[in-house]
């Protein structure tokens, strides 16, 4: 009963607004743009969060990635002839890190090499990684065929190789390749599996398996290929000695990730004379994303806020004019027996219907903005239920807030004066 009464009032409000279609439309424009901005803001924000979470999932949310890099001094001297650069992470580092922190669940050392490889008639240079079976727990990827590396491979120094999707594509390998022999460097390896690989950049951290074509056991990599690499850069042959290119660390709980990363950094600082390593925390990406999100929120939020304020004032202005215009009507209603609060209610419903209609149109406009942002900037945007309900709620609130004054004004109309009003 009560509900139908409210519905009836809403219908009456709509009827009144439809009497002045153009005026009503122009009045609600401010709210339309305000709500549009809110929708855009929320969808950009949600999109950024979703993207960050997706990236973190690819990187591993509990992971810390320690990478070798040439220190600034090394970079300067390495152009000299017959110079051997020694830098990066060591087997010792890996050992120390995995032994020293109780909150570390597992670690995987990574040795990166480029080797000329051949599968049947197909010859390509592959990016080969020597690592332990732990890798596949740290960077979990779908196994497309066969298996990943297992501890016996490591212990027995089995010459086996797991191809990534990228590597398989280069060598034209399929699931039927499993069991065949691939030549890596000068040696023969048995292809035991193919795993899916992810690529992409997350902030300034690279996805760990982005530049990998094949995995071989760490023990095999060390024995077969050693630690010294020859690198050809613009005609000069540069020798480098790097034991480990990367160490991936998994911490038991996300909240401890930053503390452990700081601990590792302190430890490495002690044992490395130069800064030839970098510690990155994927989880820190979230913070970076939050910052981007904040910038967007401030910009769009200001637009939204100003539009809504101006829209609200516009509504108030028109409603005040409407009250004056309808003084006689108000007087008639009061004379018949309408109470002040019923007049307040009538006008409040009208403004709320007006602003909410503006909100609904704004929702349509707002849905278009994220679409354009995605189209032109490639940013991920996402519309959620919250992103739809919140702007609607805001537009309703605007109606009530800015409708209150004109409605009270209407209720103050003296029926005796109003009935003489021409």
């Amino acid at each position: 009963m009560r509900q139908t009464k409210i519905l009836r009032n809403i219908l009456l409000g709509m009827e009144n607004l439809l009497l002045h279609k153009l005026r009503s439309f122009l009045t609600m424009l401010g709210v339309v743009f305000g709500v549009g901005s809110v929708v855009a803001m929320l969808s950009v924000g949600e999109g950024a969060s979703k993207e960050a979470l997706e990236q973190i999932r690819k990187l591993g949310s509990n992971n810390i990635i320690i990478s070798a890099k040439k220190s600034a001094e090394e970079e300067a001297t390495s152009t000299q002839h017959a110079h051997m650069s020694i830098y990066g992470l060591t087997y010792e580092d890996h050992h120390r890190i995995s032994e020293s922190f109780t909150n570390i669940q597992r670690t995987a050392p990574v040795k990166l090499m480029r080797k000329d490889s051949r599968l049947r008639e197909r010859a390509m240079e592959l990016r080969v990684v020597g690592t332990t079976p732990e890798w596949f727990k740290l960077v979990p990827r779908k196994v497309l065929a066969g298996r990943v590396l297992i501890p016996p491979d490591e212990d027995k120094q089995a010459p086996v190789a797991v191809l990534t999707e990228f590597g398989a594509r280069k060598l034209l390998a399929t699931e039927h390749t499993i069991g065949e022999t691939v030549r890596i460097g000068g040696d023969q390896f048995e292809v035991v599996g193919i795993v899916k690989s992810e690529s992409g950049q997350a902030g300034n951290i690279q996805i760990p398996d982005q530049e990998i074509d094949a995995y071989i056991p760490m023990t095999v990599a060390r024995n077969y290929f050693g630690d010294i690499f020859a690198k050809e850069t613009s005609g000069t042959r540069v020798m480098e000695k790097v034991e480990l290119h990367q160490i991936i660390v998994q911490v038991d709980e996300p909240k401890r990730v930053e503390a452990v990363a700081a601990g590792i950094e302190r430890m490495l600082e002690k044992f490395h004379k130069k800064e030839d390593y970098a510690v990155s925390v994927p989880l820190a990406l979230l913070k970076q994303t939050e910052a981007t999100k904040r910038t967007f929120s401030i910009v769009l939020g200001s637009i939204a806020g100003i539009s809504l304020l101006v829209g609200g004032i516009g509504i108030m202005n028109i409603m005040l004019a409407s009250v004056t215009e309808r003084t006689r009507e108000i007087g008639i209603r009061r004379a018949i027996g309408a109470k002040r609060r019923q007049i307040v209610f009538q006008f409040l419903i009208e403004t709320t219907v007006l602003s909410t209609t503006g909100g609904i149109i704004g929702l349509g406009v707002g849905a278009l903005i994220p679409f354009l942002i995605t189209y032109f900037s490639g940013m991920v945007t996402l519309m959620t239920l919250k992103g739809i309900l919140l702007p609607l709620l805001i537009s309703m609130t605007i109606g009530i807030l800015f409708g209150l004054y004109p409605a009270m004004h209407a209720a103050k109309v003296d029926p005796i004066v109003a009935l003489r009003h021409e």
Partner: protein
Amino acid sequence: MVNQGHAHDNAEIIRLENVYKIYQMGVQEVKALAGITVSFKRGSFWAIMGPSGSGKSTMMNILGCLDRLSSGRYYLEGQDVSGLDDDALSELRLRHLGFVFQSFNLIPQLTVQRNIELPLYYLGWDSTRGAQRAQELADEVGLGDRAHHRPTELSGGEMQRVAIARALANDPQIIFADEPTGNLDTTTGEQILELLKKLNRQGKTIIIVTHEAAIATHAQNKLHMLDGVIDRIEESADETN
């Protein structure tokens, strides 16, 4: 339908006791009503007369519970309504009173039916029942076929009939008519007065405010006002009319 006993009941429906209505105009006090004592019987037909400025409009506003008196007592159906607040007065108008105005005062954007229905809306009737009753009332004043027209499409006489139908919607005991024929030609005016007389015969108490002596002849009782006081009262002995 109508309690005939009531129609001939001599019980008073309205009583004013030493009523004052004083307006403050700057530093000057204007006594629009200066000590009015009068009583109206149930089912009577009154004309309140007087030149402009005599206080007859103020009188009607007070009687119609549209305005509050400055001092004195106003009993409506035995109830003292002098001290009631705005909400209570609205409630009284809604349940017991009907109004007809010189300029019809219909809401232009609403159809005839919706105009008639307005008091029922505030009484909380559901729209189906309200629409039905509005249609009946439109039929009663001879405008059944115009129910879905807007007031602007009607003639003055028709608009006043709609206003009367609206005044009847809440089945009031008293109908106030403020110069109901003021904007109508003589013939149409006569028809409207006949309609009011018919309602009076059905038991409604009718109070019209007018400055035209010709109109007042239709009323059984006349109250002449001058400068805020009652100049004289002509009360008809014929109660059955």
